[in-house]
């Protein structure tokens, strides 16, 4: 049987909670004995996904963000769910440098970083219902 371990947190859509979210996942991830680089990669990806939920999903409105992390053997799967406004065109949103908020100097690199730092990134979104981001990363594949 595969050994699995799961954690789930829910928090307000608030810029103060972006740091909390990434540090929580990083702490949970230590069980897989990751390198510092792997921890940094996962933290960045979580930060990008949660920032998207706060800034784009809820866009100043109140709401909850649900974050689940599952460790299964040497892989972490992180799911971040918001019930915000959703994304009209996911493919367009994932294009590097595409941003709907250039006036606030958002770089349009969020999804690009998630894809660069994680092995798999899957985005499901429905306008008016919210967005779910599922990211996977295998830990320790660079070690022997």
């Amino acid at each position, binding site marked *: 049987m595969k050994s699995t371990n799961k954690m789930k947190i829910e928090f307000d859509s608030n*810029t103060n909670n972006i740091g909390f979210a990434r540090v929580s996942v990083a702490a949970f991830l230590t069980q897989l004995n990751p390198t*510092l680089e792997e921890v940094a990669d996962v933290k960045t990806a979580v930060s990008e996904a949660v*920032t998207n939920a706060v800034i784009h999903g809820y866009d100043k409105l109140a709401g909850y963000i649900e974050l689940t992390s599952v460790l299964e053997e040497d892989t972490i799967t992180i799911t971040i769910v918001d019930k915000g406004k959703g994304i009209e065109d996911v493919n367009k949103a994932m294009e590097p440098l595409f941003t709907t908020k250039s006036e606030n100097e*958002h*770089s349009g690199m969020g999804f690009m*970083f998630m894809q660069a730092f994680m092995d798999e990134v899957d985005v499901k979104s429905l306008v008016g219902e919210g967005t779910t981001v599922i990211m996977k990363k295998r830990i320790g594949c660079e070690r022997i």
Partner: protein
Amino acid sequence: MDQNFIVKGTCMFVKLPEDLDCKNAAKIRNESDKIMENENIKNIIFDFKNTNFMDSTGIGVIMGRYKNIKLVGGNVSAVNVNSTIEKMLTLSGIHKLISINEVSGLKMPVK
């Protein structure tokens, strides 16, 4: 003036926080722009000495200041950059626009 912002001649030295993300991006952006409006700034030096984390919001802040300083023919540089931050600067492509860990043309090692 915020003590993390030091102006000397035409240089503005910005001491960045431990985490450069969405939470404190606006503050750095606003303070930098306020100083640039009032002073004749030609060089912005971002000091990453205390910074261990930066995401794409942080890249946005640096990119925005770069655009502003280019309008007056100035430059942006980043110093005390560690390997995690360097990875972000490289992936974003911003390393081609600003000098990283260079002092007077000499390259400093990445921490």
